Structures are given as C-alpha cells and as structure tokens.
C-alpha cells in the first residue's frame, strides 16, 4: 500500500490539535490552575449569610486573586456558614490577625467572591486559623426591605 507522509502528518497534527484544544478548554475556559499541592494554606471564616457564594469562588485581596473557596458548610455551634479558604502559600504568616473578609459581588448580578482586607495587628494568621471579622453577603431582598421600612417610617 502506498504510504503518504503528508497524510500521516495531517493525522498527527489533527491529534495534537485535539489535545491542545482540550488543554485550552481546561485552562482558559474552566479556569483550572495547576498549583503544586502544599503551596497553599487554609483559613476558615464564619459568615452570618453567604448569599449565593459557591465553592471554587475567588478569594481576592485588593482585587488580585489570591486563592479559592474550597468548602462551605453549616456550623452547627453558631448556626452560621463556615467557609474554608485556600490561599497562596506565600501569604502564610503575612496576614494580620485582624484581617477582615467580606463577600462581594462582581457587578450587579455577577458571581460572588470573597475580598480580604489586611488589618494592623502585629500577630499573623497561620494555617487553620479563623478570620473573626467578617461581613456578610449583600442580599437584595433585605436591602429592599430596609428601604421600604425607611420609606414607611418617614
């Protein structure tokens, strides 16, 4: 049978393009980042209301993504939400103990994420510590309710 080099090359390129495409879907479209495990550390934060925060949401500091939300569960001691954050390892031992965490919204209807603001305490947060000072998500219904009750009382 006659063998054609261009055909073999074509099939090879086709396969390669398929694998590169899959890589593109992984990295660019689903935002997977290949971080070495152990390069991160965990913090916990309790929120009175997390709104529609989801696992894998971003954790930012001054707008820069520094980590992700790994788990959200109900804390049955206080009946609030315990959010587990995974932050870049280089921040370990850098965040002051009175760092605050707030749930913010990207745009009016965008996804919700956590914003960290550094405090001034000389002591720092270590792996597994809990952020004390948190600010809950903005829930539209509550805002409207407050607005309406203010209108009525005026």
């Amino acid at each position, binding site marked *: *049978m006659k063998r054609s080099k261009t055909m073999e090359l074509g*099939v090879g390129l*086709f396969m390669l393009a398929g694998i590169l495409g899959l890589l593109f879907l992984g990295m660019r*479209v*689903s935002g997977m980042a290949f971080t070495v495990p152990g390069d991160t550390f965990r913090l916990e934060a309790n929120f009175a209301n997390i709104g529609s925060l989801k696992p894998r*949401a*971003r954790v930012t500091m001054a707008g820069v993504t520094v980590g992700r939300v790994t788990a959200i569960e109900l804390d049955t001691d206080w009946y609030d939400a315990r959010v587990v954050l995974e932050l870049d390892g280089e921040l370990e031992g850098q965040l002051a103990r009175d760092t605050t965490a707030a749930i913010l919204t990207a745009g009016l*209807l*965008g996804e919700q994420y956590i914003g960290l603001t550094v405090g001034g305490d000389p002591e720092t947060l270590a792996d597994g510590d809990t952020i004390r000072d948190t600010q809950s998500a903005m829930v539209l219904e509550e805002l409207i309710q407050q607005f309406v009750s203010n209108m009525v009382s005026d």
Partner: protein
Amino acid sequence: MIGRIVSLGRRGCEVLEALGRAGQFLAQSAVGVPSREGWYLWLRQVHFVGVLSLAIVLVSGLFIGMVLALQGYTLLVDFGAEQALGQMVALSLLRELSPVVAALLFAGRAGSALTAEIGLMKATEQLTSMEMIGVDPLRRVVAPRLWAGFVALPLLTVGFSVVGIYGGYLVGVEWLGVFEGSYWGNMQASVDFVGDVGNGMVKSVVFALVVTWIAVFQGYDLVPTSEGISRATTRTVVYSSLAVLGLDFVLTALMFGGFS
C-alpha cells in the same frame, strides 16, 4: 385487520433481528486488534473521517458560537447581565451544542460516505472476494473505520467548542463591546472541567460509537443493488440523527437532570 397485526409482528421481528445482527457485527469487528498494517488502515480512515471533516466542523462551530453570542447578548442586555455572555456561550456549547451538532455533521459528512463505500464494496462483491482469499472483511474493512470514528468525533467536538467559544468572543467582545475580563472571568467561574467539559466528552464518545456503528452496519447489511445503496445511505443519516438527538436527551437527563 389480522393481516395488519401479522405484518406488525413480522416488522417487529425484523427490527429485533437487525438489532441482533448489528450487535454481533459490532462485537466481531471491534475486537480487531490492529497489526502494523491494520494500524496504517486506521490512520487512513482517521485522515478521511477526521482531518477532512475538520473544515466543515470548524466553520460551523465558528458560526454557531457567533450566533449564540449575538442572540444571547440581545437577550441578556435587557436584564443588564451581558457580563454573563461568556458563561452562556461556553456552557451551551460544551454541554449541548458541540457534541450534538458535531455528531450530526459527522453523520452527514463521514457516516454517509462510510455507508456508501462499504455498500459499494459489497455490491461489487469485494467483501466476498476478501473472504475467498482468507481475509476477514470485518477486520480489514470495518474495524479500522469503526475505530477511526471513535477517535475522530471526540476530537472534532473539542475543536467545535474551542472555535465556537472564540466565535462568541469575536462577536461579544470585539463587536458588541462586552468587557473582555467578564467574558472570560464569568466563564471560568461557572465552567467545571469534569462536570461540563468531561460530560460533554462522554456524550461525544457515545455519539461517536452510535453514529459510526450505524454507518458501517448499514453499509455492511444493505441490499447489494444501486437502489439499496442509496436507501442505506439515507437510512444512515436519518437513523444516526434521530439516535443522536434521542440519546442526547437521555444523557442530559442523567448528567444534568439531578437524578444522581
């Protein structure tokens, strides 16, 4: 009346028999372990059903992504939610449109050709001659085509998604002026690699199996006349399209319907 019931029963038996033959056929030809020459036969088929289908699949993907972005934008802008365009385009492509449309195009472009080719081999008694000289036509003719289809369609589906998402980017960001950061950012926040990309790939592997199987079986099982070939080619496209769309509903219900 009785005659109708009898013919209905006969028809049912025929369908069951054909299904049985098709299953046996798949089992016999899929086990063909490729030798060195078999590997080359497979390569040729990947070139035919995959590389040569690339143009139609990629162009369709580009246009479908562009249309999705255009339609999605006019819909979302009323709610002030045009930032969610990226996630809408990516999710609808990855979960539904890429596997289904790529499989339909594949059935029309490659499936019909497979049926006609194998059918003509049968009509001109090439398959019988192969058996005469001791070559198993299932291994020599059918197995490479079957395996080529399994490999080519998932890769084409990936290409379709990539080009479609890029088409959505062209229309949404470059033309309509959605902020680039929110196009990719919302997409990355909502698309899950295993849940969306992975399930889309599972779908496309299933469709590849079904479409290629129908195409080669229709070619192998047809009445060896010119009319039979044309009928079988039509049946390939009709059956594979129906099977793809029907299976898509079942798979979507299983994957995203929340029955797990």
